[in-house]
């Protein structure tokens, strides 16, 4: 018939078309580099975090490193070329290097566990809200917005006043306060995924809601989450630092970055160098986490562009 725009011929599917699928450029790049397309700041950020984590985990085994509460030198001693005195000693003669590393252990594990609490509950609630919408979504929104409208430090102070200062209380309080943020971000990501054809296709194959959420949608949330977790953890480190600075954080004499800053402010006029260790630790950690987050976000864009 002359009207057809297509000529349907009777060739078999096997004869036509070369059968080698094109190789994506991604596959090639992966073999070459640990961090594809990373710039210098990104390498620095990953390197710094890796060293900090290693230092925090292995602090007990670093040769020559004093325990954080041990007096190793003069009161407010200046930096010197030994392991313990690299950043000087504090007002009680304790090694600042040692305290920064042991402080990292506290700060990082609080950030990690608080994030774990926020993420598990937040992702769960966000997935329900984004998938079922309606009443569930409104309840989750209400919860998230309520949390977001409260100043976190004040809420944590109130909780600490009620339950007493301990690493556990602080972690739990920060974890609970973070749930709303994760719920909202997850909800948005789920809404954008749930309307896609692959979810519909899985449903057409008979997938249950649980399977759709856990097997189809959740794996596709991972890129979004890897991009937002580092900056949110940076926020936790700052919050924990502020609490300790105010004296409501990690109870002394346990080392913490915020507490060290607070301790050195009294002597700031006479020994300004004291404050550098902990401040440098906080600044570099926060910077690195944010840089890593940015890098992850860039990677998502690249990957989405390749699809």
């Amino acid at each position, binding site marked *: *018939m*002359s*009207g*057809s*725009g*297509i*000529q*349907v*011929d*009777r*060739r*078999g*599917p*096997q004869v*036509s*078309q070369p*059968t080698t*699928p*094109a*190789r*994506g450029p991604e*596959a090639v790049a992966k073999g070459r580099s640990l961090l594809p397309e990373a710039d210098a700041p990104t390498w620095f950020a990953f390197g710094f975090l890796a060293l900090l984590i290693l230092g925090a985990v292995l602090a007990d085994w670093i040769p020559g490193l004093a325990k954080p509460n041990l007096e190793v030198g003069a009161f407010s001693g200046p930096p010197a070329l030994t392991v313990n005195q690299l950043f000087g000693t504090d007002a009680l003669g304790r090694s600042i290097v040692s305290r920064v590393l042991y402080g990292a252990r506290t700060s990082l594990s609080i950030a990690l566990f608080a994030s774990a609490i926020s993420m598990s509950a937040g992702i769960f609630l966000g997935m329900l809200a984004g998938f*079922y*919408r*309606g009443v569930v979504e409104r309840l989750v929104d209400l919860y998230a917005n309520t949390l977001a409208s409260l100043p976190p430090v004040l809420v944590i102070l109130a909780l600490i006043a009620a339950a007493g200062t301990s690493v556990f209380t602080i972690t739990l309080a920060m974890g609970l306060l973070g749930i709303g943020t994760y719920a909202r971000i997850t909800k948005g990501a789920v809404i954008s995924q749930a309307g*896609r*054809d*692959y979810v*519909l*296709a*899985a*449903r*057409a*194959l*008979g*997938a*249950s809601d649980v*399977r759709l959420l856990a097997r*189809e949608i959740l*794996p*596709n949330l*991972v890129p979004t989450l890897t991009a937002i977790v580092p900056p949110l953890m940076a926020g936790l480190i700052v919050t924990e630092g502020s609490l300790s600075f105010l004296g409501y954080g990690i109870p002394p004499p346990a080392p913490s970055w915020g507490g060290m800053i607070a301790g050195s402010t009294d002597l700031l006029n006479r020994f300004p160098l004291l404050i550098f260790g902990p401040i440098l630790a906080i600044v570099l950690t926060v910077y690195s986490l944010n840089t890593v987050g940015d890098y992850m976000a860039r990677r998502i864009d690249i990957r989405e562009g*390749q*699809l």
Partner: protein
Amino acid sequence: MDAPTTPLRGPAGGSGPAVDDARDAALLKVRDLTVTFRRRKGSVQAVSGVSFDVARGETLGLVGESGCGKTTIGRAILRLLPQGTSATSGSIEYGGQDLGSLSSGGMRVVRRHLQMIFQDPLSSFNPRRKVWDIVAEGLVIQGVDKQEIARRVDAALADVGMSASMVEGRRPHQFSGGQCQRIAIARALALGPDLIVCDEPVASLDVSVQAHVINVLQEIREKRNLALIFISHDLAVVRNVSDRVAVMYMGKIVEIGEADHVYARPAHPYTRMLLEAVPMPDASVKLKPTSVDREMPSQSNPPSGCRFRTRCPLAARICTDVEPPLRRMPQGQLAACHFPYDEPAPGRPGPGDPGIPGDAS
């Protein structure tokens, strides 16, 4: 079952007034299907009282402009419409079971028999899955045992001209559009369905690849005696694959019947308009558009009477007042029009066609 290569073509007529070619052998019976989407402001009826049958091994083409409700019908059949924002009434019967009354568990069993192919194959694959797992997914969900899964995935891939070694370890984005659509077909085939809803399966592909994918579909259809609902806005494609054709306009079927009848002698002015819009390879054939080309009216507030009257060259008073029912036309098909055409389609070389001036052959 008789010879699977002959699509069933029942005798025209002999059933209820609004349904085309209802046969005893109907695999799928859709009756008075109405789908309403709730929007923030009011609601939109995407499908209004649509009825049709699909027989085993038959291909029904569903054509119409975008937004006419073809995709909604396809999704309604598979119960894929969003439950919170849409309401479905009427009945969809598959093999004697009313799908609307099935539990989600019961529906899961039926899904082995009813499958779907989407317009954009790549977006219908989970980007984080490997191709082999994508094809196997339905079987995994349906609880088929491992050896059987491997066997059926291999068979389905072979049916679309691919093999397990070709897809081994690869992800969907490493394949071309045509290959992806064949993978999508394989995924639907793996479950061993009786009916596949193909929603614009070739619209996103290059024309050369379109023909190939359609050939694959046709071969599989004959081999497995599959029924297809082939949704497309492209009349040329639909003509090539369909036994019967249903033309939709604003949520209603305006013409339905044997593809040969509808294409040779379209009765509804809208069908004629669509056929005139198909590009003609023969430049010597001049077409005079018979229709007043205008935008489709608002879905949320359809015109009274015949919904096509605002664009129809034949519209008269009665079209505003009375909605025309689907009626049997002398040439065989059903059409919903007060002033149906009876002559062959314009510009198509046919016996005694006077409408081609200057054809010096």
